[in-house]
């Protein structure tokens, strides 16, 4: 009763980073609320993970193991989660904002008629006074999330329903094992009593790894590289920065012509037009045919070794220097400061 349950996701036989990040955060929250931190793990052979969960502070592990549950399936996984939450009545339940978490959590919240906040980037404990009724609430979970395409940050609360449920974005919280693991308990969930054959009506017929399609237009952050990046290998720096920032990689025509990047990434007059929240142009001179496709971006950062490069004129921040030094520094700084 009244504890915190973290849904633990596994991928390729490993616990997902986001689940460990949530356990780390969960320890702080449980400390503030003086309640227990608990974990729910579902799969076909998940026993092997219990020690790691203890290392991260889970005091109780609810373990649902069944050979039919090797891969995530909405219906049986949600049946188990709903059943556990009904019995254990956690005050808070957290999920990773992954394709699994964002499939499972809404289904569970709907069945429990309990609110769910999507894609949080921060969680805090705080009080609340209802303006109309004057009713006061203590120790609510403040669920802080970007919305409106990242143009606003909303703090959402769930005053009256339990559990307070949220999905949390991967990589925004710190992941830190304990110096000494907790001595917790494992509680085995009898899956046969909960899941029914009808829960397997949706079958997986094939799974395979496939490169993602390029979707530059829909991305709020774009890291674009030009001829000045120098090579296809050097472009990997841009992909690395893009992956930490959750961004897409774009390119100038000269970079595409030189074979550094795919044609689908070209931005400009003969490429695509973008208006992201943040555009970082590295090794791009800033010819009009390029800027025509990006000068409406809300914020522009230019990186160019030539102080007179025209791209610096339209930038909000102009960094003069070698992108091969600057991009790794940006990555390092982001990793240091974002947690």
């Amino acid at each position, binding site marked *: 009763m009244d504890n915190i349950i973290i849904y633990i996701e596994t991928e390729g036989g490993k616990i997902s980073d986001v689940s460990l990040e949530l356990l780390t955060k969960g320890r702080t929250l449980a400390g503030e609320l003086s309640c227990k931190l608990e974990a729910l793990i579902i799969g076909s052979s998940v026993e092997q993970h219990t020690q790691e969960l203890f290392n991260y502070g889970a005091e109780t592990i609810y373990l649902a193991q069944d050979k039919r549950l090797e891969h995530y399936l909405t219906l049986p996984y949600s049946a188990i989660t709903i059943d556990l939450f009904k019995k254990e009545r956690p005050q808070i339940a957290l999920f990773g904002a992954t394709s699994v978490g964002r499939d499972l959590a809404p289904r569970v919240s*709907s069945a429990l008629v309990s609110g769910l906040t999507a894609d949080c980037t921060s969680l805090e404990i705080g009080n609340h006074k209802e303006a109309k009724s004057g009713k006061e609430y203590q120790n609510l979970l403040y669920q802080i999330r970007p919305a409106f395409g990242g143009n606003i940050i909303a703090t959402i609360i769930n005053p009256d329903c339990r559990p307070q449920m949220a999905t949390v974005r991967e990589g925004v919280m710190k992941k830190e094992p304990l110096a000494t693991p907790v001595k917790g308990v494992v509680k085995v969930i009898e899956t046969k009593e909960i899941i029914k054959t009808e829960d397997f009506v949706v079958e997986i017929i094939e799974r395979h790894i496939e490169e993602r399609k390029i979707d530059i237009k829909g991305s709020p952050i774009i890291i674009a590289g030009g001829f000045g990046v120098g090579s296809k290998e050097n472009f990997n720096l841009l992909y690395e920065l893009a992956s930490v920032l959750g961004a897409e990689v774009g390119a100038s025509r000269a970079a595409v012509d030189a074979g550094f990047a795919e044609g689908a990434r070209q931005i400009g007059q003969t490429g695509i037009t973008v208006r992201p929240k943040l555009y970082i142009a590295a090794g791009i001179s800033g010819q009009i045919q390029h800027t025509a496709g990006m000068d409406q971006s809300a914020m522009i950062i230019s990186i160019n070794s030539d102080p007179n490069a025209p791209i610096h004129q339209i930038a909000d921040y102009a960094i003069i220097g070698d992108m091969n030094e600057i991009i790794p520094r940006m990555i390092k700084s982001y990793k240091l400061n974002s947690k």
Partner: protein
Amino acid sequence: MTKKLKIVVLAKQVPDTRNVGKNAMKEDGTVNRAALPAIFNPEDMNALEQALRLKDRHPGSVVLLLTMGPARAAEIIREGYYRGADGGVLLTDRKFAGADTLATSYALAMALKKMHPDIIIAGRQAIDGDTAQVGPQVAEKLNLPQVTYAEEIVGFEKNKLVVKRRLERGVESVRTPLPAVITVHATAPECRPRNAKQLMRFKHARTLTEEQDNEHNSYLPVISPESLRIPEWGVADVGGEESHYGLSGSPTKVKKIENIVFQAKESKRLTSSFEEIDMLMTELISSHTIG
């Protein structure tokens, strides 16, 4: 196999939050939400295309749109007509106002119970609320299976529908019985363009509310024939518990909204030293531009 299907596409009218250029910005550097145009939610367009492709392959099928919103959201139904849909319903009532995703999905589910679809196709996520929760919650409320993150509805196999899903690290194909709820991802094919004939035929499709408004306001009233009437449903039409709708049916409350401030209008020059880059990154993080 010729199967006649009844397909309902869930579509939301949203402010275009994706491409906020400098002209949608207020003096203080925050986004002027009122200046953003109202559009057909992008992933709902992908959803509509999947529905129209099913209709192409299964002649005699019907594609209907269901949208919940204010009077002007009737535009969603007209847009659907222009692209080849057969009609739709505007779910509109003051009592729906202030709904979070649970109350939204309750209202949509109540309307869907009246429509008896074989397939419900939604977008994965709306670009204003940004939650991706409504699809799965509608499925739960109707006690139906769900297939999220769909990139392609492949077709029928053993009387079940095969759907290809786009996940973080790859693709997965699943087979689901019908009825089911499918949510469509942005990597699915774009929607076909408007059809000129459909546009001419359906541009006068109106809700009763629009019709009455038109009679009062327009100097050239266009009375649309009964066949072009877009139905409007409210709580009284779909039934259900009043307390489950709108604000009272919404467990989540917005406590605070903070506008992101986009700073630095004039260009600032920086060297490549770690200290200066570190300062820039810290500023970007604290203004929520990144992270």
